[in-house]
């Protein structure tokens, strides 16, 4: 059983290699196709043509594309993601230091979506056309059609500007505080571990608005999939059998209905999580959140190739791992899927 799981994981990871290779090629090519000249950007607006040319040479950008690509592959093979012109740091170090910020935001957003979305979906499936169902429909529709950056701006306007309940949307922590000693990289958890409740309060206060913004977006597909999946399962033969056997409503709903809806829910959660990784880019910008998304966006504007390539590759690897965990979880719920 255990060896089978490991061999499954191994073969799935191997199977993901071609996609990762494609991601590497495509991002490399697209970055070069985009307008913008990193050498010119780096040299600044006042630089002379020779200065720009000199910088181009320094950065190795004067060589042919195949040679540049070959060098890039060689570096990647050694775990070197290259250097960011804008921060002057190795991309790998930048990503590692910024990834926890993005993950903390995304995970809390997903938690919000799950904690609200699943009950909404369950309630609206068990009481179709009731007021809960109507509310769910309204929430899911608005959640789908409002762009996240717009939701974020509205929340900032209302809760920071009008009501003053939220701190300024400027990063992960009030400027008064310094980050807690790093254990997980998640400020809220690290602050709790350090027993520093003031920092915890500040980190949480900073986190709420961007997490709600993302969570509101993630809620819609989750609530909708829960509702649809549960409705289907509730009219299934085996739920009817369970009712005919006099099993209590609670057992019928949990052991028979919800557990059978778990596979589509888990799949939706995986899908939503990967969407969130992408959408983060905008929300991080709006809330000045120092995550990998805003990092990549700034690099993109500066035509700074290495960070963007590193970001896309990191997200792709995360995506592969995420899908793998979703599949393993689904296999645990429904053994037919584990074969």
């Amino acid at each position, binding site marked *: 059983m255990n060896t089978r799981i490991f061999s499954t994981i191994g073969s799935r990871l191997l199977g993901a290699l071609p996609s990762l290779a494609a991601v590497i090629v495509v991002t490399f090519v697209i970055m070069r196709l985009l307008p913008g000249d990193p050498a010119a950007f780096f040299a600044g607006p006042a630089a002379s043509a020779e200065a720009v040319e000199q910088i181009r040479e320094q950065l190795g950008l004067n060589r042919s594309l195949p040679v540049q690509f070959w060098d890039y592959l060689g570096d990647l093979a050694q775990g070197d993601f290259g250097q960011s012109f804008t921060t002057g740091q190795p991309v790998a170090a930048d990503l590692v230091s910024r990834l926890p910020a993005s993950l903390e935001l995304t995970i809390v957003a997903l938690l919000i979506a799950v904690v609200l979305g699943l009950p909404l979906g369950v309630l609206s499936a068990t009481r179709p056309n009731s007021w809960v169902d109507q509310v769910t429909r309204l929430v899911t529709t608005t959640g789908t059609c409002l762009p996240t950056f717009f939701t974020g701006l509205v929340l900032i306007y209302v809760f920071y500007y009008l009501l003053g309940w939220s701190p300024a949307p400027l990063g992960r922590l009030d400027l008064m505080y310094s980050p807690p000693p790093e254990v997980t990289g998640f400020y809220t958890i690290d602050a709790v571990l350090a027993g520093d409740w003031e920092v915890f309060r500040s980190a949480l206060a900073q986190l709420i608005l961007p997490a709600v913004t993302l969570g509101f977006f993630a809620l819609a597909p989750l609530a909708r999939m829960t509702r649809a999946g549960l409705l289907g399962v509730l*009219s*299934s*033969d*085996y739920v*009817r*059998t*369970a*009712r*005919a*056997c*006099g*099993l*209590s*409503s609670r*057992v019928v709903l949990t*052991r*028979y209905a919800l*557990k*059978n809806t778990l596979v589509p829910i888990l799949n939706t959660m995986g899908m939503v999580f990967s969407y969130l990784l992408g959408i983060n880019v905008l929300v991080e910008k709006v809330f000045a959140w120092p995550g990998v998304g805003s990092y990549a966006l700034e690099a993109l504007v500066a035509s700074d190739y290495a960070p963007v390539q590193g970001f896309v590759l990191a997200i792709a690897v995360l995506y592969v791992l995420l899908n793998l965990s979703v599949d393993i979880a689904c296999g645990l*719920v*429904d*053994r*037919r899927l584990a074969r």
Partner: protein
Amino acid sequence: MNDEKPLFEVTDLSVKFHTRLGEVAVLDHIHLNVGAGETVAVVGESGSGKSVMAFAALGILDPAGKVTSGSVRFADHDLLTLRKAALDDLRGRELAMIFQAPRTALNPILPVGRQIEDVLARHSDLSRSDRRDAAVAQLASVKITDPAKRYHNFPYELSGGMCQRVMIAIALACKPRLLIADEPTTGLDVTTQVVIMDLIAELAAANGMATLLITHDLGLASDYCARIAVMHAGQILESASARTLFKSPRHPYTARLFAATPRPGATLESLTSIPGQLPDLRQPQPPCRFSTRCERVQPGCTEPGLVLTPMPTDSAHLLACRNPL
């Protein structure tokens, strides 16, 4: 039938479904009863409403279906007005059902033994380990070989016949007084059909359990049941002991059904199909819903007030026909 009240009694039951295409009167004033320990069959074509009747009795109708008249009595309980908690105490314990499609009737992601245990947990005070033993014993009682190992199997790992045995094991786990068996052998091969039917009959006899067999197979019904009710488009047209019905059917539809049932000694040519098809129940129906297909139809058939009434000669033989054979 004797003078005492039957164990299970359906009186004047009507069910309507709300569909997008309008209201469908699926059951029309159904009468049916089953005495303690008795075996009764309901026979009718596919779509005649047999399953709907059973679902309505057990309170497991689709939300789109509504009971519009009548009552269902089991022992001293009126099933249609019983509180849900009280109904749940009866279902699975005194009154059990097995279903048409054995594979989909089982929870696909729960080992079959656990599904038996769930019923025991609901209706008995056995301890956890006793429940487990009882579940294994229950699997053995439906003649599943190696029950301790089968306990851990998921439905997808079992054959259709095996799933139906498991379903029987679940239904009979609490030794109910009445078993409603809804086409327990459809989808199974002929040999397995016989085995499953014999198993049900044997367990019913051993426990003194009454059985309501729902089937479209008149042959199967007369082999296993003492009494047969013939259903057509949501109406009971005739009901009598299997022997009476076999010897002298009075309703043209019953006679047609017998003519369409393969039996020993009959040639394929002698089998005749029933003309026409079930009426479209979204349209208003004449008092006898078979009249549009009936060769003995006469002007009186359209007059209202047709009811299932005992024959003057035999009070156990009920008939709803204006121009019987």
